[in-house]
């Protein structure tokens, strides 16, 4: 029998627990030649802000050991162009569409969410309070429980769409921030966004990124992501979305066992556009081998000696 990979999180029904992570899958159409998007559990768009943003100067990316740094600077078309030009194309795919929202003030988050609220085809919003690449771009909002709660609370008031709070790992106590966003009305919590990092060219004595610092992603961050998912999943009631360095079915399973209800794949898409398809296949195979009827049965079944 074919295992049931479908899951329900935050009131969003997904075909399977594998989604494309924000900023790595554009507005959905970029990968359409290479990936059967209709087979994905869902996709999260690039961060959308109120006004269009040019983003950071190049170089914006650099490879590091088993990972990469990026400083894109939230380059995006702005919410109005997104609704007019991108959403109609996204809406054609038979997959869940989650829009990632960023802002430099709480009022901006609220306004973006208000404009997206009425827009057809959006299944949920991921509130990005975790971007490390712009000074006022969310990172600050996600570093403190009160501010994090405020962003979620205020955006909650202007939409009935499911809200996912996306957290930054660049904090001392991720659990307190997760709890604060849960109390403020987040329907799910996704983590982790990228870890702050930098790398230097010793010949020129300059940073390799024009922005000096960037966000680290890829296999290098998986152990960090996993421990944060583990801590947060043990502390909140809302479902957790696991993100960070997932490239294989086995990686995804680690997150599910640790307590994530679904996973997102970011950098893995760059390495291999078939990455998410292989992960879905890997999950299916695992369930078949272990006689698991429904993938959600394994969520949080990690066994730890007390």
């Amino acid at each position, binding site marked *: 029998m074919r295992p049931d990979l479908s899951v329900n999180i935050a009131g969003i029904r997904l075909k399977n627990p594998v989604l494309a992570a924000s900023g790595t899958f554009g507005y959905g159409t970029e990968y359409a030649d*290479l990936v059967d998007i209709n087979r994905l559990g869902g996709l999260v768009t690039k961060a959308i802000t109120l006004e269009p943003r040019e983003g950071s100067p*190049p170089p914006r990316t650099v490879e590091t050991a088993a990972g990469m740094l990026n400083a894109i600077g939230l380059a995006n078309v702005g919410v109005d162009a997104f609704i007019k030009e991108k959403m109609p194309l996204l809406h054609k795919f038979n997959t869940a569409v989650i829009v990632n929202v960023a802002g430099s003030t709480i009022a901006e988050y609220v306004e973006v969410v208000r404009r997206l609220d009425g827009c057809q085809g959006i299944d949920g919003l991921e509130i990005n309070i975790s971007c490390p690449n712009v000074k006022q771009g969310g990172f600050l909002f996600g570093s403190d429980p009160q501010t994090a709660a405020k962003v979620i609370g205020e955006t909650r008031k202007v939409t009935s769409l499911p809200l996912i709070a996306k957290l930054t790992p660049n904090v001392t106590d991720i659990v307190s921030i997760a709890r604060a966003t849960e109390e403020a009305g987040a329907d799910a919590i996704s983590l982790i966004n990228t870890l702050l990092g930098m790398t230097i060219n010793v010949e020129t004595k300059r940073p390799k990124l024009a922005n000096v610092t960037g966000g680290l992603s890829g296999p290098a961050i998986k152990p960090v992501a996993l421990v944060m998912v583990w801590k947060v999943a043990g502390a909140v009631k809302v479902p957790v979305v696991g993100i960070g360095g997932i490239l294989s079915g086995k990686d995804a399973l680690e997150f599910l066992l640790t307590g994530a209800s679904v996973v997102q794949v970011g950098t893995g898409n760059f390495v291999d556009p078939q990455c998410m398809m292989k992960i879905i296949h890997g999950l299916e195979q695992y369930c078949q081998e272990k006689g698991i009827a429904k993938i959600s049965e394994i969520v949080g079944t990690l066994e730890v000696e007390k």
Partner: protein
Amino acid sequence: MSVVQKQGKILSNLEVAPSIFLLNLGLPQVAETAQPGQFVHLRIGPLSDPLLRRPFSIHRTKPEEAKVSILYQVVGRGTKLLSQRCSGEKLDCLGPLGRGFAIPKVAGQFILVAGGIGIAPLIFLAETLLRKMGNGKWEVEKEKRKKMEVVFLMGAASTEYILPESELLSWGAAVEVATDDGSKGHRGPVTDLLTRQMDRSVASCHIFACGPEGMLKEVAQIAGQQKIPCQICLEQRMACGVGACLGCVVKTRSGYRRVCVDGPVFPAGEVIFE
């Protein structure tokens, strides 16, 4: 013409000049549809370090043999590892990617300027232009026909890097060489040859260039002064290769544009050099 992801079989991968390798891949779909200036995004190996793909211009295609060639220079870890891959092995390839050179509608004098490994895409372009001239289908006013010409200006560190000269000549291109050490042709930058060429150039002239940024900047300046249409092929650090991650941007008059899908070929006048 859609982008494909295919396992390309390595037909050969040989050092053709110091630290320069010619990689031949069996990639039927890419060989069929690729245009000069487009590139492939190669996964160097199956492991996650080095993690990201590496972009390489398409150097030649032979659709009848389902073959795509890449000419690459070993500059770091990824290209070093690539140079160690053997015939018979497979490489995961995405392609053909990007917007290549726009082939002018009307024939004229085409000046190709290559700096170092920047020669890679220009050979494909030269071959395409010359073939089009050869088959006589080019839209051209009669009196201009005799001025149809491909002039290939080639710059390199020294003589051992001047690889494809004889082949270009056999196709009917005019070739001029500049080397940094003067071991062949003009001693000095290839842009000297371009400046010289400008005195001789005819009315409907086009410049196409690929090479280091400093060279491209100078080519763009010369073309701008002479009001000659000029297309340049750019490089930038790249992650996805398909326009999704917004990583590989360059500064242009219309804002940041992505090298991977808005380029890698841009009108020279559009690009803002630092």
